Every structure is written in C-alpha cells, then in structure tokens.
C-alpha cells in the first residue's frame, strides 16, 4: 500500500504537480472516494516507537466527529490503565493520566487527542480541495494559511495516506493499510502515524469493532 503511495507520489512529482482537473472531473473524483463512519468504537493494539524503544498498549476509542467527542482508555498489556479521557464537544470532561507519564510534563492526553483526531477525523477532503492528479488513484490537497494537507486515495477510492505540512515541511503522515469490509463498512486493519515533528511513530492494529 505504501509502495503504491510512493509510486503515486513520484508520478505526481514527475508530472509537475500542476495537472489540476476540470471541476466536473473533480466532482466525479469526490463521488468515487469513500467516506468513513463518523462514529465508531474501536479496540486496537498500539505500538509506540520512539528513539529505538517500543512500547505496546491496548486502546479503546469511541469517536464522534460531528460533535468533536472522543472517549479513550489506554491500558498496558497486563491490564493496568495508563490513560483515560472523555472529550465532549472539544472539551475534556474527564482526564486521567497515570503519574509516571505525567511526570514527564506536557499534555499527554492532549497529544493523544490530537493524534486520534488526525487519524479518525477529516478523512474526506474538503470540497474546495484541489485535485492535482489522477493515476491509479487520486490526490486531494487542502491549503490554508501555510498549512497543507494531502489526501491520497487508491483506485478503489480508499484513503491510503494523509500528509500534513506546515510552511512546506512535513509535520505528520498517516498510512491506512489493508482495508477489509466488516458489516458493510471498510476498515483499515493497520494504521501507522509518523510524527515527524516529535520523532515518534504509532502503529495501530485493529482488533475489534465494538458497538
């Protein structure tokens, strides 16, 4: 999947990245790409990799994009809760972070919230996004005041990558891999987030889709 992204990226680069398509074609592209559930409860195993160290946790996440709400519990593999929060309409209404994480300072729950939003929110490009090129798939680009988010879709219309840039520098990238259909919906079985700014990587394996 990532190889296809790379190939798509190379094609786009070689083609000059300027081949914007007519509006009618763009509308067709928008129709072809998949949209994803705005509300789900997912159980993942998550491997955090940072500076040659890795740490695996279990995470249950309920998200509701329209209301900007997220519930998260994160446990180590022996069952101890490391972090838990509840976000309602963008505000924390409950937040727990085990002290050994908290002692490192920073807003750990806020960082997790941001990564969850990057992964599960905004998986469909804005209607004003530019369509630069279609090859085996499509690429949509949203630009806004020095920020740029690129959405890569494969030929089936599945989102396979999101990349976010600030002032031309990549900040994070998310790879959605190995889509499988469950209960009429498509779910990536593996999601990889690379945070280039802070140098860490998350690998989430989907274990269960919950009600």
């Amino acid at each position: 999947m990532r190889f296809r992204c790379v190939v798509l990226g190379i094609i786009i680069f070689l083609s000059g990245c300027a081949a914007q398509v007519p509006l009618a074609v763009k509308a067709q592209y928008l129709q072809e790409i998949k949209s994803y559930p705005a509300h789900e409860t997912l159980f993942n195993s998550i491997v955090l990799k940072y500076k040659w160290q890795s740490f695996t946790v279990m995470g249950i996440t309920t998200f509701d994009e329209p209301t900007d709400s997220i519930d998260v519990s994160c446990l180590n593999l022996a069952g101890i809760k490391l972090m838990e929060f509840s976000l309602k309409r963008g505000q924390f209404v409950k937040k727990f972070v085990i002290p050994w994480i908290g002692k490192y300072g920073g807003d750990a729950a806020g960082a997790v919230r941001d990564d969850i939003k990057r992964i599960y929110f905004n998986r469909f490009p804005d209607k004003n996004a530019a369509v630069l090129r279609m090859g085996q798939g499509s690429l949509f680009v949203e630009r806004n005041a020095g920020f740029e988010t690129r959405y890569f879709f494969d030929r089936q219309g599945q989102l396979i990558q999101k990349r976010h840039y600030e002032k031309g520098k990549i900040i994070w990238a998310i790879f959605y891999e190995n889509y499988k259909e469950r209960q009429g919906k498509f779910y990536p079985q593996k999601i990889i987030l690379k945070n280039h700014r802070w140098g860490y990587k998350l690998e989430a394996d989907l274990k269960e889709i919950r009600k």
Partner: protein
Amino acid sequence: MYKKIIFFIGGLFFSCSIFAQGNKNAVDSLKEVEKNNIAITTLSADFIQTKHLSLFQEPIVSRGKIYLKKPGLFAWRSTSPIKYNMVIKGMAIAQWDEDSKALQKISLNSNPAFSTAIDQMKLWFYGDYAKLSDNYEISVTSENPLTFKFVPHQDFFTAKVIDSMSVVFNSEKSYLKKISIAEKSGDTMEIDFSAVTINPKLGEKVWEAASAV
C-alpha cells in the same frame, strides 16, 4: 512507567495485606490457606482477566496462562487479544509482545517500588501470608467458597485507587480461584483461574519471555 506496572502488579496481584488487628476469623482462615499452600512448589493455571471500564460498555477480556515456581519464578502469558509474556525471575522482569516483538528487561534493583510490589505479589502467589502486614481491613464474606474481602486503610497508598478487593480460594483452600478488584474510578477487574495444575513439571522455556511455550 514501571513503577506503575509495579503498582498494577501490586494491586492486580493482590498487593494487599491483612489487617492484623481485624477480623480474627479471617486471619485464621488465611493461615489455613497458607498451611495448605506450603506443599505447592510449582503451579500452572489458565486465567481470564475481565476489565470493565466505566467509559465503555463492553469489557476488555484477556486470556492466557500463569506459571509459578517457588521461590522466585513467575510468568504471565496472555494469548489474546494480544500475545504478551511477562516473566519475573528473581530480581529481573522481562516482557515481550507479538506486536512490537521487542524484549524488554527491567532490573528490580533499580526499581525499588517495583521490587516492593513484586514482593507483595509473591506473598499471594506463593502463599506466604504470614508476612502480610496491616494495610487492609479484612473479612470473610463466604466460607464456601472461602472468600475474603480486603479494604485498604485510608492511609495506605492503594486506597487512592482501590475501593476493595475480593479473593476467592479453591475448594481445597489452597489456591486462588478468583480475584475481583473494585477501583475508585468505577472500573472493575476480575481474574478467574481455572485448569489449575499443582506441582507440574515446567520447562525452561516458560521462563523465557520471548519464547513460546
């Protein structure tokens, strides 16, 4: 982090102590269990760990096996939902999981808090109940099966996160059958033990975290 793992182990694996001044009947019953436990040198058992989180309706259910060998070996091997092995060997802890495929080793010498929790864990798994101190109010809630309830004293650090623990012993009153922990947060955790084998012959690979058994 490992202090917290320890804390977890301490809580999960029964880092509770008998309130020595409390229910005399309970203390006597625990001594009886301790006496019955002496003949156990090795043990293996299946476990089902069920964690109910207050934020979610469905629990997280983990399954696997535990192994112990007196005086200093303990292994926790989850098979689902994620393969995860934790082996305690003397003053060292090793962890491995299938997703990271990384083997992590921790020395208890440099983690005194972890060491304390492991000591508590050993008390429970090895049946050395006479060492239990007086940090909990203890009572017998059932004679058959023999069931104890532990409520941490308010000045004990465990009281900050745990409301109470319930420990059920098997019909022979020799080993743990079930642990239930009620947390202040509203979460609960239960661990059921089954297929308990007393004094089995355990291979060396059981004590290697990165090895399959």
